[in-house]
């Protein structure tokens, strides 16, 4: 193993996953490419969604790829940071909303 789990150079090797299982890789990349084509959403909107999701799942490869992707599509720093805040708000909200569950339990157990 390398000294670190993540190597930025590995991002360029993403396609190499086909080496161990070509058919599924082919299907995945075909699907992946179709997803990011312009459709009901623009390619620009999709890049911004991908950037937000990348932060939610905290994937360094995805953050690298979609930071570049967003810049290439003409998005600016403020727009990109707002997308990250959307991800953070949903993540934070997801924790906080479970506070209701905690409250329910506490109230049930308490006199």
């Amino acid at each position: 193993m390398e000294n670190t789990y993540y190597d930025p150079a590995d991002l360029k090797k993403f396609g190499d996953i086909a080496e161990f299982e070509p058919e599924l890789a082919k299907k995945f990349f075909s699907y992946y490419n179709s997803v990011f084509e312009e459709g009901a959403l623009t390619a620009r909107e999709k890049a911004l969604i991908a950037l937000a999701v990348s932060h939610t799942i905290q994937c360094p490869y995805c953050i690298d790829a979609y930071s570049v992707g967003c810049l290439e599509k003409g998005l600016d720093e403020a727009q990109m940071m707002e997308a990250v805040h959307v991800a953070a708000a949903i993540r934070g909200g997801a924790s906080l909303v479970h506070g209701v569950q905690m409250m329910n339990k506490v109230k049930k157990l308490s006199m």
Partner: protein
Amino acid sequence: MAQTLKHLNATLASPSYQNDVLNNGLFTGGKLPRFKEMLKKSGFQQLKPTDLEIFQINLGYMCNQTCKHCHVDAGPERKEIMEREVMDLCVSKIREFGVPTVDLTGGAPEMNPNFRYFISELRKAGVKEIIVRSNLTIFLASASYQDLPEFFRENRLRVVSSLPYFSASKTDRQRGNGVFDKSIKALRMLNEVGYGDDLILDLVYNPGGAFLPGDQKELERTFKRVLKDNHDITFNQLFALTNLPINRFLDYLIASGNYEDYMEKLVESFNPAAVDGLMCRNTISVDYTGKVYDCDFNQMLQLGVVTSSGMNLADISLQALKQRAIVTGQHCYGCTAGAGSSCQGSTVSQ
């Protein structure tokens, strides 16, 4: 204001040093294929010209701005300016070659003291289309330039202007403090005299860093919407250009540690479909001394045309130009990446 590499006596100000950087390092030892090898691998032998359609003339390297990405290394202290004799030679050759379009660039071409004389001579020569690449802020640089929009209108020039982004922060970071606000004022001046409608006003977008431009049509839609909504400005087309690793953009790439990744990105993004539409095939570039190049980028790297009659415009025939092989280098990857890039924007529809 930033200073030119030449003014700073930077090693990188030398075209031969830049050619060394571009030809060695990454492009030796098989790490990355040289542009010529990539062409061959993709089924192209030699790059040959098509009919000569655009006669691009660099009127000099003097400019009122010192943009960080400038491939010309232009700036206020650059003194290289085309003299009237060279302009007259250009007019005579344009007549002889029957070229329909003349494309004037710089520096700021309007700063050439004979700019208006040259336009009137080109008009007399019956040139079908004259393009002026204006940086916009020149209109506000001194009182003597304030009537330029009117002058452009009278001469029905096609105006192509750089506006790298539709917000002040990104534009100013690349082109200098206050450039965005001045550009907006200048665009309003152009709109007021009829540009952006019947008179053609095109804008040029180029990335504000070490990344490639996205889809030209999508960028154009966004630029049109934002400029209209926020500033009541209209324009015709947006050209998305790739930054080429020459002069100040090369300096930026090296200083910021992005050079290797950027060159790899350009090579990985090589698009064979962009080769046919390369601007060096239908364009020649003439420098302020009357020397001829396959494009403005080759001009900056001092890679002159190779013809049977040399590289001086005075000696060159149309036949010799048609028979030449186009001179290429590793910087050419900038014009074949993704959707392709030329002075007229993308060369492949995405």
